């Protein structure tokens, strides 16, 4: 355990600098996107009141955009806009568009026709009708749309941290992968507060007398611009290369902290989600990324691992972790799960990952083929005695392992299987296991040590010398603290690694992390 467990308030004070930066970035991102959405959405909404035949198509497209999952949208945008603020703002802008277009359209078409007729009859031109009559009368409805858009945008802006655009998502997703509740709350509470505050302020504006709307319409653009100007792109310091690290890597001793401490690495670093990190590297948006030594995307994206010549990334075992109570409840389970023990070494795991990540075979197929080849596969017994729930984290290797376990359980026991794959981070997986939402999932001893147990630095140094020592330590501690058992290791070692594109590393003659550090320190 750490010497002193920080409470939320202490954490927020300690991280006040970061918190302020992230909050400002968050507000900035929200309002840049919002201004763009108003600039495009308002005229578009007005246009479709004039050309009603287009209203269906425009509103339809805006609705479809709204339904695209945000992480998928960000993924689509990387090849076009890269990573960082541009794709983040563009995605937020797309999400903010629908409520603004729709409410402009509804607001203007909802103006009393006799008022429009009167305006026409007094001899107003169509522009005069728009600015003197329709817009002022539609303003409360348009405002409601802007309000909705603001709240949506504040929420979705947390995802900006996936693609290195900063914002409060850095704390939220960092906290989830590092199993740090304080960190999650330090991001989530301000994000929620921002949504509530902006919603409240806009609701006040909306309720003002229609006549006063005119003056607001003049003040609002200035206010929006002011808020938007709060954004500045996240960057550490300029350097020749750019690194993108996952939130988990950023906060771990065997990650960025060790890189700085042991190698004195000074590199312009952005925080990025690992789902889009490889793609960004491949698209030349990043030069150095953090990854896993067994990752299939190494081959898929033609990357090389930089040699860890000062040994800050200790190798760790992967093994299923499961509650003792569950093992008692399902006596056949332990032996079945241990069937896989020692069967997959580093190169096999890397190849399996390559099959899914690069050749796009389904994890089910890859798992089955492997079991068949190793004479472990048995057809399903179709048992319904009870259902074992398998969890997995949200990356390829874990999907493959989860599928293997599923086939093994179906073939060797009378249990049925359900999977809850794609759990987004260590914290979510571990909490699910702790609360019996899942029965087991594959975990890495390093993560168990550094993200879950979080012992003092002294213990970490003592335990990390050897992977067996680490395994024994986490197994003992997990049993003591959580009554959870680490089953036999699957065989492969998984460790963090720094990766670069092969051709870039070759042309810069960088093979080790030390060489990278030296290269960066050259003037």
């Amino acid at each position, binding site marked *: 355990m750490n010497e002193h467990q920080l409470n939320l308030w202490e954490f927020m004070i300690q991280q006040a600098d970061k918190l302020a930066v992230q909050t400002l970035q968050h507000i900035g991102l929200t309002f840049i996107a919002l201004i763009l959405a108003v600039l495009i959405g308002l005229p578009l909404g007005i246009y479709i009141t004039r050309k009603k035949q287009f209203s269906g198509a425009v509103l339809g497209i805006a609705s479809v955009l709204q339904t695209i999952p945000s992480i998928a949208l960000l993924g689509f945008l990387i090849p076009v806009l890269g990573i960082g603020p541009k794709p983040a703002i563009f995605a937020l802008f797309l999400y903010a568009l629908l409520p603004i277009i729709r409410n402009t359209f509804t607001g203007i078409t909802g103006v009393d026709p006799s008022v429009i007729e009167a305006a026409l*009859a007094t001899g107003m031109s169509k522009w005069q009708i728009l600015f003197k009559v329709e817009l*002022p009368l539609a303003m409360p409805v348009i405002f409601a749309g802007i309000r909705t858009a603001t709240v949506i945008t504040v929420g979705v802006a947390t995802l900006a941290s996936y693609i290195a655009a900063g914002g409060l998502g850095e704390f939220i997703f960092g906290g989830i992968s590092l199993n740090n509740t304080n960190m999650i709350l330090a991001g989530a509470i301000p994000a929620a507060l921002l949504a509530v505050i902006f919603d409240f302020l806009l609701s006040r504006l909306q309720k003002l007398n229609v006549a006063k709307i005119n003056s607001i319409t003049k003040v609002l653009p200035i206010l929006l611009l002011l808020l938007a100007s709060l954004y500045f792109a996240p960057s550490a310091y300029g350097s020749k290369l750019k690194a993108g690290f996952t939130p988990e890597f950023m906060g771990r001793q065997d990650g960025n902290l060790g890189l700085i401490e042991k190698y004195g690495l000074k590199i312009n670093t952005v925080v990025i989600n690992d789902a889009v990190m490889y793609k960004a590297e491949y698209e030349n948006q990043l030069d150095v990324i953090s990854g896993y030594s067994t990752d299939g995307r190494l081959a898929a994206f033609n990357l090389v691992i930089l040699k860890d010549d000062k040994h800050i990334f200790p190798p760790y075992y992967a093994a299923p972790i499961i509650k003792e109570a569950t093992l008692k409840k399902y006596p056949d389970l332990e032996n079945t799960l241990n069937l896989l023990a020692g069967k997959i070494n580093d190169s096999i795991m890397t190849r399996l990952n390559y099959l899914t990540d690069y050749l796009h075979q389904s994890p089910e197929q890859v798992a089955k083929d492997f079991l068949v080849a190793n004479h472990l596969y048995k057809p399903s017994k179709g048992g319904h005695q009870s259902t074992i729930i398998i969890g997995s984290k949200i990356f390829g290797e874990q999907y493959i392992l989860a599928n293997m376990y599923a086939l093994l359980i179906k073939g060797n026991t009378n249990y049925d299987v359900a999977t809850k794959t794609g759990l987004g981070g260590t914290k979510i997986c571990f909490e699910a296991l702790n609360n019996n939402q899942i029965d087991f999932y594959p975990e890495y001893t390093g993560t168990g040590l550094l993200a879950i147990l979080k012992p003092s630095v002294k213990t970490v140094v003592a335990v990390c010398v050897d992977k067996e020592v680490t395994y024994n330590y986490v197994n003992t501690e997990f049993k003591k603290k959580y009554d959870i058992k680490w089953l036999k290791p699957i065989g492969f070692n998984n460790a963090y690694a720094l990766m670069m594109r092969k051709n870039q590393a070759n042309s810069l003659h960088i093979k080790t992390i030390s060489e990278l550090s030296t290269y960066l320190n050259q003037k």
Partner: protein
Amino acid sequence: MIKVEGLSKNYGLVKAIDHISFEVEEHQNLILLGTSGCGKTTTLKMINRLVEPSSGRILINGIDITKEKPETLRRKIGYVLQNYGLFPHYTVAQNIGIVPQLLNWEKQKTKSRTLELLEKLHLPADILNAYPSELSGGQQQRIGLARALATNPPVLLMDEPFGALDNVTKANIHAEFLALDELKQKTIIMVTHDVQEAFELGDRICLMDKGEIVQDGSPSELLLKPVNDFVAGFLKEQQLLLEFKTTKILDLWSLLITSRQNNVEPIINAEIDLWTLIELIKKQKSEFVNIQNHKNGEVLGLGFEAIMQAFYQYIKSK
């Protein structure tokens, strides 16, 4: 002053207006009367080009209205709507000042004109800064009228202007309407489905049905010489009332039998219609009145009985 020639309006295959023609003289008040759907409002809206005709043309002072931009045309024509169409986000002053503003009047001129109109329409000056939603129906109607009159346009188009008012308010406003000097100087075309209103306010009535004008004439012509059963039927229910309203004492002059002169009462002009005279008699104690024929200066003392007898004789002779 306003001449409508062979005007038609088709919506697809439906003929909303079928080749109608009529003419309105300066300072005349023409009523377009008919049931809903007869095309009267469409006809009205073609005059300020809120609706464009399919064929035919409209001349104002001999000039085809399509020669001008619609906006320019409309700024010269006052328009009053059934639901008033006041701008809810504008104050009373801003509402009245809208056309002056479009014509770039000086602020001072607009202000004095606004105050003048408020006074003429019996509205208190302190409502200038009120919003339409804070006013009663009658007040909103007057503001609508004031807006139409703001720049003193020679032509006034009114689409069911009193349609949304209750009967009591309506009667009061009718009286004001007739008394308003400003309106006497206007050429007015008014749409209504209310027969009484048409007879009370109109100098001439065009009775419309199914997009055509069935009869075009003075109120008494419609009443006493209906061209067909439709016209007679349309007016039948209110026949007697309308006859009272359209018959002037002057019309009965030769049929009247003089009673004794009544010295106390004021002398009434023989232009008065029968309905108003009856209302007057109701209010006074005696049933005798003195009436003067301004054409020859003759004064008769008349009793209610004598007037009624003359009236029935007059109707029979028609």
